[in-house]
């Protein structure tokens, strides 16, 4: 099931190439569209799937622009229209015409009507902010900490770097690993219970994009400090200021950066 879209993409590409060789722009067009759609869908194999609204938008653009592309040259455009013309006008295509009018169009209408009225239990879509603005300052067990320009104090002690990472590893496996996972991939044993799932630390998309002070704030304050636009109730991150001291949080942060091969953003 996972590989249906890549397979479709290859089929689409094959149709497109074959049609290009046989100089049939119409099927070339259909092949390209199929390849693009399936290609966008199969992105889910290597990354989170694209939101359906974005796929929809890209497809509208693709349908219109490639139509434009195939109508640039006069010959290509005529060849493009030929299959449509033959289906509409040729005598020997009568069976196909009948099938379209009496079977395919009603089926399509039925499908649209069905999907329009069939009940669905999904809540309405809502906009969200991926990375809320980091705050200026926060309180840690009543102590005010200025976040802007906040540095990890342990990083200055370069001689003991390995020791801190080792300590951070312990902190991680005692606190974080249940959700964020053994491989720092966001696939811990509890991960499936959350919606949205906990973010992975591997790769360059999450912690690599953030300064270490942001990580400290996010760990210390958890979901409670997220602003309304980020839907605090969409995060299950606990307030670790209640369970850990500052040094432990910094050690854990050093560990996840070290183990995922990332460096904190410093600008």
């Amino acid at each position, binding site marked *: 099931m996972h590989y249906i879209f890549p397979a479709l993409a290859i089929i689409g590409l094959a149709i497109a190439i074959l049609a290009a060789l046989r100089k049939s722009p119409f099927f070339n067009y259909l092949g390209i569209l199929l390849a693009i759609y399936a290609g966008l869908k199969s992105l889910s194999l290597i990354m989170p799937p694209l939101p359906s609204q974005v796929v929809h938008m890209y497809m509208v653009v693709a349908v219109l622009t490639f139509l434009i592309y195939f109508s640039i040259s006069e010959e290509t455009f005529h060849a493009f229209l030929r299959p449509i013309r033959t289906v509409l006008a040729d005598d020997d295509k009568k069976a196909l015409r009948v099938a379209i009018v009496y079977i395919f169009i009603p089926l399509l209408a039925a499908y649209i009507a069905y999907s329009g009225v069939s009940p669905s239990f999904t809540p309405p879509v809502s906009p969200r902010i991926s990375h809320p603005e980091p*705050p200026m300052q926060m309180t840690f067990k009543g102590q005010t900490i200025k976040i802007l320009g906040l540095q990890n104090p342990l990083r200055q002690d370069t001689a003991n770097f390995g020791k801190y990472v080792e300590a951070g590893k312990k902190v991680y496996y005692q606190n974080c690993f249940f959700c964020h996972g053994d491989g720092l991939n966001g696939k811990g044993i509890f991960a499936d219970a959350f919606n949205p799932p906990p973010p992975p630390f591997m790769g360059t998309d999450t912690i690599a994009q953030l300064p270490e002070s942001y990580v400290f704030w996010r760990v210390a304050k958890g979901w409670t400090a997220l602003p*309304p636009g980020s839907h605090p109730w969409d995060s299950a991150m606990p307030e670790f200021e209640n369970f850990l001291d500052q040094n432990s949080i910094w050690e854990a942060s050093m560990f996840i950066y070290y183990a995922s091969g990332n460096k904190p953003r410093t600008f």
Partner: protein
Amino acid sequence: MKKGVLKLALIVIVLNLVFVYIGLEYLPQSESKPPKTIVLKPGISQADLVAIGEKIVFGKGQCMVCHSEQPSTTERAPAMSTIGAEIAREAKARGIPPEQQLFEALVNPGAYVVKGFENIMPPANQPPTSLTDGEIIAVAAYLQSQGASVTVSYPGSVPLLKAQEQKAAQAGAYK
């Protein structure tokens, strides 16, 4: 020729329909309504005052255009969630009562600008927001509720507010 013109008209209409479709389907749909004047009952409870003030801060007062809710690195004006404490602290530093600091900040904001910010706030009793005395006191109550204890009341605090307005007018803050 006739066919060409018809096709042309079709293009015009279809293109317009596409634009309307985008406008209706892809863009978020919200209206922006003009505000209504809120009339307060004399002797209103502090809890009600704070609730009304909150509504004004997030609505017709348009405070959130510049103020952010949480303190953040990109803020243009002091954050709302800690503003009561902030006002109390500034008042203490200047050696004036917190109510005076509060009302001055609302109706004569240019008189004292907190360090690190620019003088960009329009007086709340002047257009375009033009809040009434009662509304300003409600806003003041809400601000105090964010990190300090509420001490203003309606109509008890009106003379204090009036004094600040007068001072601002004399200083030429309302031109």
